[in-house]
């Protein structure tokens, strides 16, 4: 636009204002990258209208600044103008861009959480323990992030340390992103583990069946032997008890013979 910075220029921006506009531009570029990332990582490649709305509002406040500086009709601007008007609107614009970035990161966390859970659900936990031992740390991180989803939208104003909060959030999302990538590449190893465990399970089942059959056979044989022995013992016992007594019965003389 060819406007030299400085208060001497009626429409121009002061050095401080230019630095703030540069800050907004830089923040916007970062937020944009996070929004694009969030849309790419979404399971259905969906956009979030909340994010689009935040960008619309950020643009609106930026345009208020431009209109205030360049419009001939300043009647409509209300009580404040100049630096005060600039400060009020640049802060609001920055706040909306931050919220757009947080919305995007929330979306990315949710998409990654969903993908990690569905990725892990296909495998037994022992396989995950063996092949992806870092899962337990990620799990803690996922639960922590789960608690904060949507929190920033409840706050109307941005705090002084919002930049640090955003940086920490980006770092956390990056940890999840790396783990998800690792989970995807660990797929074959997890499948192999699952297959091996299945084979081992089948083998164990087979050997259990073999043991059961052997036990049954041995048990059967033992029962048969015991049965035979018992039969023999019973027979001999009954033969003994039922056999006619070898002792001659006592002679009872009948009264007729006398």
């Amino acid at each position, binding site marked *: 636009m060819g406007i030299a910075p400085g208060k001497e220029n009626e429409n121009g921006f002061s050095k401080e204002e230019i630095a703030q506009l540069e800050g907004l531009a830089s923040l916007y570029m970062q937020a944009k990258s996070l929004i694009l990332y969030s*849309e790419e990582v979404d399971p*259905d*490649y*969906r*956009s*979030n*209208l*909340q994010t*689009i*709305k935040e960008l*619309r*509002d950020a643009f*609106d406040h930026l*345009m*208020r600044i431009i*209109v*205030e500086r360049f*419009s001939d*009709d300043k*009647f*409509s*601007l*209300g009580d404040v103008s100049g630096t005060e008007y600039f400060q009020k609107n640049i802060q609001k614009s920055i706040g909306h861009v931050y919220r757009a970035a947080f919305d995007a990161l*929330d979306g990315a966390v*949710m998409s990654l*959480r*969903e993908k*990690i*859970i569905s990725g*892990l*659900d296909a495998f037994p*936990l022992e396989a*995950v323990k063996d092949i992806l031992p870092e899962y337990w740390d990620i*799990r803690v991180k*996922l*639960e922590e992030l*789960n608690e904060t*989803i*949507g929190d920033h939208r409840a706050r109307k104003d941005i705090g002084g340390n919002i930049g640090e909060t955003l940086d920490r959030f980006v770092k956390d999302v990056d940890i999840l992103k790396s783990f998800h990538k690792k989970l995807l590449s660990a797929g074959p190893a997890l499948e192999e583990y699952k297959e091996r465990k299945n084979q081992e399970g089948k083998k164990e089942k087979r050997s259990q069946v073999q043991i059961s059959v052997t036990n049954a056979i041995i048990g059967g044989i033992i029962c048969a032997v015991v049965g035979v022995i018992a039969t023999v013992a019973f027979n001999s016992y009954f033969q003994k008890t039922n056999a006619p007594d070898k002792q001659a019965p006592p002679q009872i003389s009948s009264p007729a013979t006398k």
Partner: protein
Amino acid sequence: MTIRVSETTRNIVCKSLDIDRLSEVIDMSYGGFSTTADVDRAKTGLYSDSNRGSVRLNTGRYYTAKEYEERITRIKNMKLPY
């Protein structure tokens, strides 16, 4: 490039927004966007053929405020393997 709407348009818009001059819109805020004042997916679909804007929006690949809230609840309640 200057775009100027006609006097008639100005009058219609000003009357409908209850303002005296078109320039007064500068400090007006856009309408809210929430679960109670949500985007009408069906209505959006009606204009998708003639809309030359975003492909994502035209093909319905977006979350409305209500859908987004429901998504948050659903995903927050998903249990991690333990």
